[in-house]
Every structure is written in structure tokens, then in C-alpha cells.
């Protein structure tokens, strides 16, 4: 079942195109990383999908509901963590959250708020004015606010940007829990490692969708699959022997390390090791090269 479905979705502001031709399908229970540089149109896309602004072209359905025809129903079904926490600073943390639980029409607002504050380790600060909290704590309160009503789809706009490592870890754990609970998470972030760790698929976006696939598939698409073989005193002869093995497409030597482009590392690695050992090479380590997602992202954004 699709949680989010868009067809040719676009939005212009006074003739300036912010988003164009977005075709997207996000499965229920999926965590989608929506990556792009600042000003790429990510927030505009989220606002359209959350029923806050209407598209100028195309269509979108969230939880099966048309965002243009029934924006109020869409807003009922989604949770949104905005770019800035946007809390009522003079009100207590508790009042902030109870208000939103009531606005979302959630049953047992007090119970829900208590549960989330305890989950976020904010229970002791519940009576404090929201304005007195640290930036990270405010972000956690805003995250509570987005999740209070158990939304089927959650839009998280840079949820860990202001958080210290511990708090960021809590947020990531919550995202994982949301996936396990079958919630769909639409995540924008500039933390590539976070996206790599949390997201089932990655969409790279800059006004329009550039690619959409799993992080692994994007790596393979851009860089192919690579084996790295660390040797004791590697030579060009070792490189020649390794590249002669069936399944090795090309290779290069970096000091005592051979980097081999292969079609299937699981099948090729044993043959490469066998050939090198037979040639008297001292094999120290063999592994598959995993390009960081950041490199994949920069390649794709740069290319666009």
C-alpha cells in the first residue's frame, strides 16, 4: 500500500518554479530520505504533502487522501516536524503539547503527553516555559508534538540538526521505532550518515527528483562494486595477477592496497585471494569498498 503518491507534482511562486514534475511513491512503513541542498524545494514539497499549501501542477495523495481536495483530512493523518521548533515560548512544555494533542483531536491528551515526555526524557521539565529550554530540548518537544496523535505519515524536516549526539541518538531510535510500528517517515536531513543508517530508500532532489533508490543501489550505480585487498608489500605484479582473475573488471594499486572493480564481490573475492596467495603475496585483509553516502550525494547533486 502506498502512503504517499505524487504525479507530476509542482509548485511555483510568482513564476519561480520551486518544485516540478515530482513523481514519487512511498510505501507504507517505509523511511524515505529526501535529500537535497538548501533551497532545493524540500520544505515546499513537505508543505504540499502535509496539506499546508496547494500544488500548482500535478496531484498528490497521502494515506490515500487527495491533498488538494481534503487538506484538513490529510493534516489529521500526518505529523509534521517543522524546520524550526516553533513552540509557544511563554507556555509550559506541558501546555504546548496538550494544546496540540487537543488540536489533533487525540484521545487522552494528558496521557499521550506524559508518555512522550517520558520517552524523550523531558518529564522533569514539563512545567518549564518552552522558551527556557535549550535548542535541542525544544527540538525534542517539537518532535513530541509531531508524534502525539500517532500519525500514519510523519514528515521530519531536519530532526537532528540542533541536537547533541545523545539527543540525536534518541531521535534516530524513535525513527527506527516508527518504522517498526509501521509508520511512514519522510525525512529530510543533511546528515548523510543518518540518512544511510535510517532510510530504506534515498531520494535526491533538487527542484525535481534526480534519483530514488536504496543507498546501496545508488552506490553501485555510481561507483560499481569494489574490492579492496591489503597486502604486505604490494607490487604492480600483484595488481596484474589480481586483475587477471575472472570477474575483475579493472584495478589500481594505492601503496600496499589493491582496489578492484568487480561485478560480484562474493564470487570474485575467493578467486582473487587464491591467485594472490599462490603468487606468494601476503594477504592482510580483504573487504568490499563502501562509498560514503555523502560522496554519492555530492556526485548526484553536482551532476544535477
Amino acid at each position: 500500500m502506498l502512503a504517499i503518491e505524487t504525479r507530476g507534482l509542482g509548485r511555483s511562486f510568482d513564476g519561480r518554479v520551486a518544485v516540478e514534475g515530482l513523481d514519487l511513491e512511498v510505501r507504507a512503513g517505509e523511511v524515505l530520505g529526501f535529500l537535497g541542498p538548501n533551497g532545493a524545494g524540500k520544505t515546499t514539497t513537505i508543505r504540499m504533502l502535509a496539506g499546508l499549501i496547494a500544488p500548482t501542477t500535478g496531484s498528490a495523495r497521502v494515506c490515500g487522501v487527495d491533498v488538494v481536495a481534503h487538506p484538513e483530512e490529510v493534516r489529521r493523518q500526518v505529523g509534521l516536524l517543522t524546520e524550526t521548533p516553533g513552540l509557544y515560548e511563554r507556555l509550559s512544555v506541558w501546555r504546548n503539547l496538550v494544546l496540540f494533542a487537543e488540536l489533533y483531536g487525540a484521545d487522552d491528551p494528558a496521557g499521550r503527553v506524559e508518555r512522550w515526555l517520558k520517552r524523550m526524557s523531558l518529564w522533569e521539565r514539563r512545567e518549564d516555559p518552552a522558551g527556557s529550554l535549550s535548542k535541542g530540548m525544544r527540538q525534542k518537544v517539537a518532535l513530541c508534538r509531531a508524534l502525539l496523535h500517532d500519525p500514519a505519515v510523519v514528515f521530519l524536516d531536519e530532526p537532528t540538526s540542533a541536537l547533541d549526539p545523545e539527543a540525536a541518538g534518541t531521535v534516530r531510535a524513535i525513527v527506527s521505532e516508527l518504522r517498526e510500528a509501521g509508520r511512514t517517515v519522510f525525512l529530510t536531513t543533511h546528515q548523510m550518515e543518518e540518512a544511510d543508517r535510517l532510510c530504506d530508500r534515498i531520494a535526491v532532489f533538487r527542484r525535481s527528483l534526480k534519483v530514488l533508490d536504496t543507498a546501496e543501489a545508488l552506490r553501485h550505480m555510481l561507483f560499481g562494486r569494489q574490492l579492496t585487498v591489503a597486502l604486505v608489500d604490494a607490487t604492480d605484479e600483484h595488481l596484474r595477477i589480481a586483475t587477471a582473475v575472472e570477474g575483475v573488471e579493472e584495478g589500481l594499486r594505492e601503496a600496499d592496497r589493491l582496489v578492484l572493480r568487480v561485478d560480484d564481490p562474493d564470487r570474485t573475492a575467493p578467486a582473487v585471494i587464491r591467485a594472490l596467495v599462490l603468487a606468494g603475496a601476503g594477504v592482510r585483509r580483504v573487504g568490499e569498498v563502501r562509498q560514503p553516502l555523502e560522496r554519492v550525494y555530492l556526485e548526484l547533486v553536482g551532476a544535477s
Partner: protein
Amino acid sequence: MSRMVALLRKEALDLVKHRMVLVTLLLVPSLLTLVALGSVVPLQALPQGEVSMDELGPLAASVDCTDLAPEDCLRLSVAAMHRLLYLIIPTTLPTVIAAYSVVGEKSERTLEALLATPISTTELLSAKGLAALIPAVVATWLAAAVHAAGLFAAVGPDLLARVYTPAWLAALVATVPTLALASVLLSLLVSSRSVDPRSAQQLGGFVVVPIVGMLIAQSLGVGVLRAPVLAALTIGAAAIDALLMWLCVQVFERESILVRWKGM
């Protein structure tokens, strides 16, 4: 309905904690009541025979001085004229609250989260409007009660009864809320299209202009605080309220507010 109540409760809590708005809310009625009483109390020291009806001129013409001594007529006309301050309070006070209600949400960056909830535009505007209307009307009534008590102490029950006539009491009940609502709606209308609370407040304050005109007319002896004039004022304000209410819902575009918010 429950969403509107939830937001109304939040607005009330926020108001109590918003020192600047709260001080304005208390200060304006207090000062105007002081002015109203302060203009009558010194007249108590006026010796008998000090003024004549002829000298009162237009002042006496604006009130019913039948069977009154010239000094009492002067007291009555001054006290009666200052009643208009209680029509100024409900037109000025709500602008302070209402102007902040949308623009304040924008500048404090709370509006997007609020608009992301299923609250409807009507619920949102009703809550914002009532949150500005109720304190302004209550503050006006309390200030008028203090004024009446002060007059009772200063000039006695007979003159008080001529100031707080049934027509004036009806005006307090009906005209004050309708004028306050016009002021609230105009402020909401402006603030939903504006990015600056001050401009919203200033434009919302336009409602006070006809009341100031009435104050001038009363001081010139026109006698605008008679029942037919007050009834016409109330009906006119109610008609304007209906028009402004319709305009508010038409003009308040959730989307343009969010989009224009970027420019702040």
C-alpha cells in the same frame, strides 16, 4: 468546537504571560477611568452660584438638566461626556491583542505548526477573535463599574442615575461588544495580510475614529449619547461586524501567510 476551545484556552494563558499586552490591557481602562473621574471630582468643590445655565452653553444642551442646579448640570454634562471613553476602550484594547494574534504567531514562528493541525480557518479565527474580544469587553465593563462607583461616591445616586441611564446601560451591554468585535475583526483582517504587528494594530485602531468624532460632537452639545444614536451605532457596528467576519474568512489564506512568512 473543541479545537476552538483548546486554542482559546491557549490564547488566554499566553495573554496572561504576555506582560506587555497585559499591562496595556490594565493600563488603558485604568487611565481613562482616572481621567473620567478626575474631571468630575474637582467640580464638587464648585460653590453654589458660581456658574449659570447660560455659561454652560452647549455643554448643558447635550444632557437633560431638568430640575438641576447649574453646578449639578455642569457635573452631569462632564460626567456624561466622559462616558464615551467607555466606547473608546473596547475599540482600542482588542487591537493590541488581535494584532499580535496572527502576526505574532508568524514572528514567533509558531504558525506553521498550528496551521499543520486539522483546525479549520473558521475555528482558528473564532478562537483568535474571542481571545481578543472577551478581555477587552470585560475590561471595559469593569472600568465602567469602577467609574459608576466613583461617580456614586463623588456626585451621589441622583446624578449617577442620570449618567447611567437605561439607554447607556444597554449601550454597555450591546454597543461595547459590537464595537469591540469590529475592532477585533479589522485587526485580524489586517494582521492576516501583514507581517508587522504595529501596522496591524494601527489600522485596527481606525474603529476608534467615529467614537472620537462622537466625543467631539458631545462636547459641542450635539447630544450623541441619546438612545436612538446609540441604537444606530450598535446596529451599524453589527452590520460592519458581519461584513468584516465574511471578509476575514475570505482574506485569511493559510497558504499565503506561510509563503509570505519567508520574507520576514
